[in-house]
């Protein structure tokens, strides 16, 4: 009887707590056990091939780097790279078996000045390699 009275008195709390714990359990299952979410990160981008996003290495932006935006389903990334996306070439590629994967390059129409300058291939001097072009591009900027 005492239990019944107390249960009725605290019914609202028990209900709140139960729902909270159930929701917490679901959340744990989804995010920690199943890793059911996508991750976004900066992928590699070659400005010679694609229009890349431009990032700064420091606050003064003395040094720039180029990247694409990658979104992948977390279990795929974990399977391919473990817990770290850095130094993992697979993280920059969308494989057919990946459940969800997209790589977004910079679009000058929507992203504007955040994109890297398109590099025009020289017509008469095809022996200039990409490294040289990159260095030249940096010097010009």
């Amino acid at each position, binding site marked *: 009887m005492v239990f019944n009275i107390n249960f009725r008195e605290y019914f609202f709390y028990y209900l709140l707590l139960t729902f*909270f714990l159930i929701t917490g359990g679901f959340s744990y299952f989804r995010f920690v056990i199943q890793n059911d979410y996508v991750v976004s*990160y900066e992928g590699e981008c070659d400005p010679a091939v694609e229009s890349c996003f431009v990032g700064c290495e420091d606050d003064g932006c003395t040094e720039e780097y180029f990247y694409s935006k990658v979104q992948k389903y977390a279990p795929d990334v974990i399977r391919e790279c473990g817990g770290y996306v850095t130094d993992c070439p697979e993280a920059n590629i969308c494989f057919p078996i990946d459940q969800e994967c997209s790589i977004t390059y910079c679009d000058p129409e929507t992203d504007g000045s955040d994109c890297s300058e398109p590099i025009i291939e020289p017509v008469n001097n095809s022996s200039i390699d990409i490294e040289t072009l990159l260095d030249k591009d940096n010097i010009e900027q």
Partner: protein
Amino acid sequence: MICPFFDFPTYFFFTSDVPPLLYYSHIPTIIISLFVGIFVFLSGKKFLLNQLLLGVSVFFSLWVIIDLITWTNINSESILFVWSLLSLCLSIVAILSIYFIYVFLEKKDVSSGIKFVFLLLLAPVFLLSTTSFNLAGFDLIECDAFTFENIKFYTYYYSLGLLAMIWIFMLLVKHYRVATIIIRKEIILIGIGIESFLFLFFGLSYIGSYLTTVGVLEDSRLEMYGLFGMTFFISLIAYLIIKFKAFDIKLIGAQALVWALVIVIGSEFFFVQSIINQVLVGVTLVISSTLGLILVRSVKKEIAQKEHIEKIAKELKRLNDDKSEFVSFASHQIRTPLTSIKGYSAEILEGDYGELTPELKDAVQKILVRGTDAVTLISQYLDKSKMELGQLKYDFVDFDIVELAKSVTKGFEPNAEQSKLTLKFSTDETAPCLVNADKGKVKEVIGNLIDNAIKYTPSGSIEVSVFKKDDKVLVKFSDTGVGMSKEVIADLYKKFGRAKDAAKTNILGTGLGLFLAKTFMEAMKGRSWAESEGDGKGSQFYVELPIKS
């Protein structure tokens, strides 16, 4: 998965990659909120109000802890797991705040219908918080999930905060209108506290989150300022406890101050880095705790003594009231037969029952005088008792004071004759002199002053005269009696203030007659005072009342 550009936190919470305000806004707030919530709960576990305050403080603290984890941790699984619970904590805080205020104002539990409404409002949050509708992913670069939050979903659960503010405001206004002054003060304080808390907590969190999600702000540090709303709310709760004994807690200001000091100093441990500073904070904490403990004990002792004295004073007042009531009752019962004795004596003396022998006349005259004395004495006790019980009433009417003084003087002629004194009445006034006062009480005062004059005049004469002075009328009682010094005059009108050696002349005096005369006259916008040139030089007593214009 691990955020690549951030360092792992030390002891789960501590890292240098966060704004300095983070720890100052989060840690003391958690400690203060939980401390007060648990303290209030433990002080009255069975009270619903105390349970609800604990509920608000626990879910608020949980939100703050989760928020701290999302700021400091770099593991996407952990962050997303707790991030999804932020919406739940916020929603529950909003609903419990409404529930708390409802119980605070109504002093009873809400109906099942309202509880159902509460659950209905929470249902979408419970159902959707763990789904992709709330959180779809995680940004490893920024190490947060702002870009993956659903604006519609968090607008819903933040709007529960707005709903709580409106609902609470309506409840406050409804109760404020019908509340007493003291309850109104409580309503204002609790209202300001909870509304400020909800506005700062929900408002700044929402703005911070929204602006970060849409990319206007780099991070949601704006929310940190919102947490101080809880500290403000808790401060007002503490004030309510101290001032109004809210939550059925006896807490004194000194205790609250010491606890606040200890919490603030204790919180310093989370910010200071060097060992020397930590030692200094530790020493300060020990010293302030010890001194605080001594201070609290001393104040508690003083308060206990004060409460004991107040209790005794209340008991004494109750006993005094009981005594006054008894005296009033007893006096009334004695006065009735005495009045009959006095009346019959007067009729016998006037010859209504036949001729009297000189011996019999003398005896009946003595019965009349003693009877009059006893009735006067009992009337005075009765008046004093009524005054103490707050039952004394004045019946203001217009009457001619010259006529009244004249008739009262005439009534005392047998007494004066008995004491072998001459009692005269004189006035220059030919027209009626109207005053607006309680005729019965003025008659009692005049009678009492003539009676006094007879008693304190061993030989000679007494004169009662009435004359106008400006817009006032004065009744003067002059006698050739014992007179009195200035020191005696000063104490004469006090309660039980009899002249020195008065008992030798007048054994039956109560010491209340002049006190009552002064009280009565002042209540009727008049006054009464005494003058004398010294011992053996006679006295003059005055009664003054404003003339009715």
